[in-house]
């Protein structure tokens, strides 16, 4: 009964991630932490990055928050993507994700870079929902800034 376009927005992977949220939970301390609020809906996220100081690699990403299926799945998918990335690698992925999200459906996200998170590509057709998909990534971006500014 629902259109294929809607099925494109809410792919099975997204609904699964929205229900079983990977990386959910915050640690008492982290190498970087950011809190972001989506002003259009009032939803929010707190996101932490943990770093291997020696190798400069991000070991894990944790988060807590509430929001729509898109925002929750997006944070969950991000937390799958990050472990093992150097800081610059995360920045590269955030940039690639943003470009795809802002493309109004004209740019397919790059699977090489973004892995399973490419399933969020359909969101870019729904301007009002782009902020939902971006919420965790903006938080990650701010956290990265803290790491690089240290």
């Amino acid at each position, binding site marked *: 009964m*629902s259109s294929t376009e809607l099925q494109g927005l809410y792919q099975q992977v997204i609904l699964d991630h929205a229900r079983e949220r990977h990386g959910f939970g915050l640690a008492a301390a982290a190498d970087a932490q950011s809190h972001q609020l989506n002003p259009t809906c009032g939803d929010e996220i707190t996101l932490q990055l943990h770093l291997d100081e020696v190798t400069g690699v991000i070991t894990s990403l944790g988060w807590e928050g509430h929001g*729509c299926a898109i925002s929750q799945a997006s944070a969950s998918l991000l937390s799958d993507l990050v472990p093992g990335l150097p800081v610059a690698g995360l920045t590269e992925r955030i940039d690639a994700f943003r470009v795809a999200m802002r493309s109004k459906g004209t740019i397919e996200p790059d699977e090489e870079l973004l892995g399973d998170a490419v399933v969020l590509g359909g969101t870019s057709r729904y301007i009002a929902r782009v902020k939902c998909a971006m919420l965790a990534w903006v938080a990650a971006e701010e956290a990265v800034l803290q790491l690089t500014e240290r």
Partner: protein
Amino acid sequence: MTTTSLVDSLSPAEVDRLRLDFPVLGERVNGHPLVYLDSGATSQKPLSVLDAEREYYLHENAAVHRGAHTLAALATERFEDARTTVARFVGARDDEIVWTSNATEGINLVAYAMGNASLGRGGAAAARFALGEGDEIVVTEMEHHANLLPWQELAARTGATLRYIPLADDGTLRLDEAAAIIGSRTKVLAFTHVSNVLGTINPVAELVGLAHAVGALVLLDACQSAPHLSLDVVSLGVDFAVFSGHKMLAPTGIGVLYGRRELLNALPPFLTGGSMITTVTMQGAEYLPAPQRFEAGTQKVSQSIALGAAVDYLTAVGLGRIAAHEAELGRRLVEGLAAIDGVRVLGPGVGHERVGLASFDVAGIHSHDVGQFLDDRGIAVRVGHHCAQPLHRRFGVVSTTRASTYLYTTTDEVDEFLAGVAETVTFFGAHA
């Protein structure tokens, strides 16, 4: 049950006829006929309103209250006729109607003018509006941000204290608490006539009684009542009332502040500029009486005229009948929603009075996902906190989905919406 049940409602055939006046209702959205259930945010506009504004620009456009040429005289006449139309609509006198750009501006006008009085503007006549430490402003926990933030800011600027009347679990105001809160320190009581989230109609008489007993002024937020119920500001006994044209068939950019004549003439000006003065020197100015006193600069002329046309349209259909029609739709909405597993309606439950509006939470599904799913089949509802965060917090939710009706809403549309909500549950649940 509702006070309007004695009045005939609109027949389905009549609603169908009315719908022809609203071409946008014939649009298709995502391949489906548009089902517009977001009139609580903003209503659609009939052709007669669009035509009134266009005709004005094609034949009469000029600056009003200035200059003596023919177009200017015509424009002024239309503009003031619209004021008379709106005044009659709410039972007020012409000079008690001030044009604003929306209800939000109307509330800010009163709050800022009181702030100005608190700083000594307006002299002795305005002293009754002055606030300071120890004075209290009372609102309710169900207010739209428009009727909360201006008072918070006024309190912060003057040192007054903001207090609020809490809500019972069924979404009604705690009148026992109201009686305890409203007292000799209360200077203003501001509350909404109809809640934009709960659909409840507040007991105006009781609240006005409590406020006037202690000499407090009453401002009524009539945003959700003026479009849907017949309103008489004099019999309600309020001192000020505000509403927005865009929620009652008129264009955006026009709203109304009603104020009792002697209050408006004692209140210091808010916005200052052209067309509201008698004499200006480099040192100071003398201000005109109300309403001009509050209408600085070039006014929203075509929008006022369009609001007059909107009021004519509403009056021709009949506010009593519109209210009866919407009460039926409201009942249908609540009964239908209550029957869907996992849906929780905020505010009065089945069998209690409400307007044609219902906000609800679907267990485990975010309101934006509900809204997105419905939009996919052409059903337009509103999602989020509806500019009432404290109210949502009170009910333990961050956001809800809201369906709201108007005179052009059909029972079929309500049914389609209900079917859509049921399928939403299946869609997001089916993948479990």
